[in-house]
C-alpha cells in the first residue's frame, strides 16, 4: 500500500448544532402550547385562589342553595349554598399537590429501581421485576379503600400509596431504556476512560431516561388526578375541604334539580387530565424528533445530488469468445428518490450493464455508490419513495423498468433469484427452514408437498449442508450464519432461475466460510448456467468469482470490462485509487526494532 497523505478532513457543513431546547420547540407545537398554557393558568389559579375567589369556599348560605349561575354567584351555588367557582379554585391546590406527590413517589421508587436493575442487572433485576409484576397485579382502588380504612381520610396518605402502586410504570420504562443503552459501546468506552458508575449514570444513562420519564410523569399525573377525584366522589376523601370529586358528588345528588352543576367539576377534572395527556404527547413528539437521531443505514445513505459531470465510461476490450446470450441488458438506468419538497434526488444515473448467460458480473463500489440501488432497481424492489426515473432494463425480452407488478411477481423467485447480505434477517424466525424452502417451490413450480420436500432436501444436500433432514426441520436460530446463507442460496436456485442477483452475499461471513460460499456459488452458476450479478465492495471476491466487473462511484459506472483486464490495467483514477487502498499486497511490517534487538 502506498502511503496515503493525511490532509485535514473537511466536515460537510450540516448546520449549527441544534441545541435549541426541547422547551423552545414545544412552544412551536400548537398542542404543546395550548396544554402548557392551560396547566400554567390552572397552577396560577390554584396558588392565587384566596385572592381570586369571590367568596369564602366554606361559607354556606341557606338562602342561596342551588342558586342559578350569574348574579352573585358566577357559576351558581351548590346544594349547601357554597359558591361553586370559589370551591373549584380552592380545590386546585390540594388536587395538584396530591398528583405531584403520587408522581414523585412513583418516580423516586421506579426510576431508582429501574436504573439499578438496568445498569447492574443480576439478582436485583429479577427481584425488582417480580415486585413490579406483583404491584401491577394489585387492584389499585381496592388497595386504596383498604388503606383508607387504616390511615383515615388523608389525601396525601392515599396519594403516597397510589404513587407506590404506579411505580412499576416508571420501573419498566427506565429499566428498558437503561438496559438498552448499557449495551452501547460508548458506555464501555466511558468505563475504560475511568469514569465511576455514578458519573456514567449521570452523564450517559440519565439523558436517555429523562425523556421517557418526563412523558410518563405527565401521563401519570393525569391518572392520579382522576383517581383522586374518584376517591372524593365516593366520599372517601377528606370531607373538610373542597375537592373536585366531592363537588361532583354534591352535584350528582342534585342532578335533577340543577343538572348544570355537574358540568363545572367535570370540566375541571376532564380538562386538566386532558391537558396533561396532551402535554405528554407533545413532549414525546418533540423529544423523539431530535433527541436521538435515527442512525442511518450505511447502504441507504444516498450521495448528495449526483453532480459528477458526464464523463465517458472507460470500457475495456472484450475478450474474444465471450459472447453468450445476453440475459440482462440495462441501458442508461437512473434511480431517484422523491424528496419532501417535490424534487427527485438521483442516486443512480446513466448505468448501463450487460449480464450474459453463464457469466458473473461484479458490481463494485464503496458505500453510497449506488450499487445496491441498481440491484434493487433491476428486481423492482426499491425502498418506498424510490423509483426508476429513466432507462430500460431488458430481461429475456421483458422490460423490467415498465413491467406490471404482477409480471414482476411472476419473474422474481422463478426466473430472477436473490441472495441477500444478511442471511439471518432474511429468514423468518417463526418458521422452520423446510417450510421457508418448500413454500416458494410449491408456488413457483406448482408441485405437491412431498415433491417439494424431496426437492428441498436435495437442494440442501447440494449446497453442502451436512445433515439435510435435520436442517430442514430446524428453525433459523438453530443454524450458523454460514449455514443460513447456504439455505438462502438453496432457496434462490430452487426454481432454476436464469439470473441470480447476489447483494454482498459473503460480507457478513467469516473468511473461511466466505471461501466455501464463493465455491458454492461458482459451482451452482456453472451447473445451472445462470447469469449472476454480484454486488460487493471486496476486490478479492470479484477476483475470485467474476468474469466481468463494473466499478461504481457516486451513482455511476466509471469503468467496466473483463475482470483480468480491469485488474491488470485499471485506467480510471478512482479505480486506481481503490486498488492502491487495498491492504492485501502490503508488505508485512516486520518485528519491532528496539535497542535490545539491533
Amino acid at each position: 500500500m502506498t502511503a496515503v497523505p493525511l490532509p485535514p478532513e473537511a466536515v460537510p457543513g450540516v448546520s449549527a448544532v441544534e441545541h435549541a431546547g426541547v422547551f423552545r420547540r414545544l412552544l412551536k407545537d400548537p398542542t404543546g402550547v395550548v396544554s402548557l398554557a392551560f396547566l400554567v393558568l390552572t397552577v396560577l389559579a390554584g396558588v392565587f385562589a384566596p385572592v381570586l375567589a369571590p367568596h369564602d369556599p366554606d361559607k354556606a348560605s341557606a338562602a342561596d342553595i342551588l342558586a342559578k349561575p350569574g348574579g352573585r354567584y358566577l357559576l351558581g351555588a351548590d346544594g349547601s349554598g357554597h359558591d361553586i367557582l370559589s370551591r373549584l379554585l380552592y380545590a386546585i391546590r390540594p388536587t395538584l399537590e396530591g398528583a405531584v406527590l403520587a408522581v414523585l413517589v412513583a418516580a423516586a421508587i421506579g426510576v431508582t429501581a429501574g436504573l439499578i436493575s438496568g445498569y447492574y442487572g443480576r439478582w436485583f433485576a429479577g427481584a425488582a421485576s417480580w415486585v413490579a409484576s406483583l404491584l401491577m397485579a394489585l387492584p389499585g382502588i381496592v388497595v386504596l379503600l383498604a388503606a383508607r380504612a387504616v390511615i383515615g381520610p388523608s389525601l396525601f396518605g392515599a396519594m403516597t400509596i397510589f404513587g407506590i402502586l404506579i411505580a412499576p410504570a416508571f420501573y419498566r420504562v427506565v429499566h428498558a431504556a437503561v438496559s438498552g443503552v448499557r449495551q452501547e459501546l460508548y458506555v464501555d468506552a466511558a468505563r475504560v476512560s475511568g469514569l465511576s458508575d455514578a458519573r456514567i449514570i449521570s452523564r450517559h444513562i440519565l439523558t436517555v431516561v429523562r425523556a421517557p420519564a418526563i412523558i410518563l410523569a405527565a401521563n401519570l399525573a393525569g391518572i392520579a388526578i382522576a383517581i383522586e377525584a374518584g376517591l372524593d366522589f365516593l366520599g372517601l376523601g377528606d370531607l373538610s375541604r373542597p375537592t373536585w370529586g366531592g363537588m361532583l358528588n354534591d352535584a350528582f345528588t342534585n342532578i335533577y334539580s340543577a343538572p348544570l352543576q355537574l358540568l363545572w367539576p367535570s370540566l375541571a377534572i376532564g380538562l386538566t387530565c386532558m391537558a396533561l395527556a396532551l402535554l405528554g404527547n407533545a413532549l414525546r413528539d418533540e423529544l423523539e424528533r431530535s433527541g436521538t437521531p435515527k442512525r442511518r443505514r450505511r447502504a441507504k445513505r444516498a450521495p448528495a445530488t449526483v453532480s459528477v459531470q458526464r464523463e465517458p465510461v472507460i470500457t475495456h476490450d472484450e475478450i474474444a469468445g465471450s459472447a453468450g446470450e445476453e440475459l440482462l441488458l440495462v441501458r442508461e438506468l437512473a434511480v431517484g428518490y422523491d424528496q419532501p419538497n417535490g424534487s427527485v434526488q438521483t442516486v443512480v444515473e446513466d448505468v448501463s450493464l450487460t449480464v450474459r448467460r453463464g457469466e458473473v458480473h461484479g458490481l463494485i463500489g464503496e458505500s453510497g455508490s449506488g450499487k445496491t440501488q441498481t440491484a434493487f432497481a433491476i428486481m423492482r424492489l426499491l425502498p418506498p419513495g424510490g423509483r426508476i426515473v429513466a432507462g430500460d432494463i431488458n430481461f429475456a425480452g421483458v422490460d423490467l423498468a415498465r413491467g406490471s407488478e404482477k409480471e414482476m411477481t411472476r419473474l422474481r423467485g422463478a426466473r430472477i433469484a436473490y441472495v441477500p447480505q444478511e442471511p439471518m434477517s432474511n429468514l423468518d424466525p417463526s418458521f422452520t427452514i423446510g417450510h421457508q424452502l418448500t413454500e416458494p417451490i410449491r408456488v413457483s413450480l406448482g408441485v405437491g408437498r412431498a415433491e417439494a420436500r424431496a426437492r428441498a432436501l436435495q437442494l440442501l444436500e447440494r449446497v453442502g449442508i451436512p445433515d439435510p433432514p435435520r436442517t430442514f426441520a430446524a428453525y433459523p436460530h438453530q443454524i450458523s450464519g454460514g449455514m443460513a446463507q447456504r439455505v438462502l442460496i438453496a432457496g434462490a436456485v430452487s426454481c432454476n432461475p436464469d439470473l441470480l442477483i447476489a447483494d454482498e452475499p459473503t460480507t457478513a461471513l467469516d473468511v473461511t466460510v466466505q471461501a466455501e460460499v464463493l465455491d458454492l456459488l461458482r459451482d451452482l452458476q456453472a451447473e445451472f448456467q445462470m447469469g449472476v450479478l454480484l454486488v460487493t465492495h471486496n476486490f478479492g471476491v470479484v477476483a475470485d468469482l467474476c468474469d466481468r466487473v463494473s466499478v461504481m462511484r457516486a451513482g455511476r459506472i466509471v469503468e467496466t470490462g473483463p475482470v483480468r483486464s480491469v485488474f491488470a490495467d485499471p485506467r480510471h483514477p478512482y479505480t486506481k485509487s481503490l486498488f492502491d487502498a487495498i491492504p492485501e499486497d502490503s508488505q508485512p511490517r516486520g518485528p519491532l526494532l528496539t535497542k535490545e534487538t539491533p
Partner: protein
Amino acid sequence: MTGRLLEVDKLIVEYPAGGFGRKQPFRALNGVSLDIRPGETVGLVGESGSGKTTLGRAVLGLAPVTGGAIRYNGRDISQLSRSKRRELSSEIQVVFQDPYTSLNPALTIEQILTEPLTIRKVAKAEATSRVRELLDQVRLPADAGSRLPREFSGGQRQRIAIARALALDPRLIVCDEPVSALDLSTQARVLALFKEIQERTGVAYLFVSHDLAVVRLLSHRVAVMHRGEIVEWGDGDQVTARPQHPYTRTLFLAAPVPDPVAQAERRAERQRLKAALTTN
C-alpha cells in the same frame, strides 16, 4: 520483567451459562498467553467466536477473568476492583469497532473528548486546548468540537474515537476491529493514522481484526486465535507469509486476493489443502 508492557499468562475467561440449573459455563478463552512490548503492535487474528474480542475486553477489564493473569508492567491487573481499575485508565485505552455506537449521540465532540480529562481534574481552559490538539492529531478541523457525532462520516467518527483514546496519553490501546466497518479508502487512511500516531507517541497496540491483510500491514507480531486458543504466534511476516499451523494456512488461503490469476492459484491450493485435511 523488562521490555514487557503487557503480559497475558494462561488466561481463562468464562461466561456463566444463562438460566437455571448447573449448566457448564461458556469458556471463551482457554489458557491464552501473549505479551506486548512498549511501542509494539500485536495483531490478533481469528474468525468470529474465536475469542479475539474477548481477549481485548479482558485486557480492558470488561470480561470476567476466571483463571490466569494479565500483567501490566509486572503487576497483575486481571482481578482489580473498579476503583483500582480506574487508575489504569490513563495507561490502557480502547478504540471499538463500530464508530456509530461508540460515541454518545447526545454529546458534542468536545464533550466526548473532555470526558476522560474531567476525571483527571484538568482545568477547563487546558482541556479545551487539549481537545484542539487531539483533533489536530487525528486530522480533524478545530471547529469539529462543537458538532454532534451524527454530522460525521464513519471514518471521521473513528478518528474521534481514536482522539478520545489518545486523550490521556495511554501506553497501550486495544483496537477492536477498528477499521472493519469502514470503506476501503477510508480504511487505508485510518490505518495510516494508526501507524503515524504509533511512530510519534510510541504507544503499543493490541490490534484485533478478522482481516489478515490489515493485521499484516500494522503488526510487528501476530497471534492467530481459534476456538479460544492461540494456535500460532510469532513475527508478523513469519505468521502472515509463511504460516505453519494448518488452521492459519486455511485462514490465509481463504481470504481472496484482488488478482484474478493469483486468486485462481490460491483457490486450487486451498482445495488441495482441504482435500488433504479431509483424507487425513
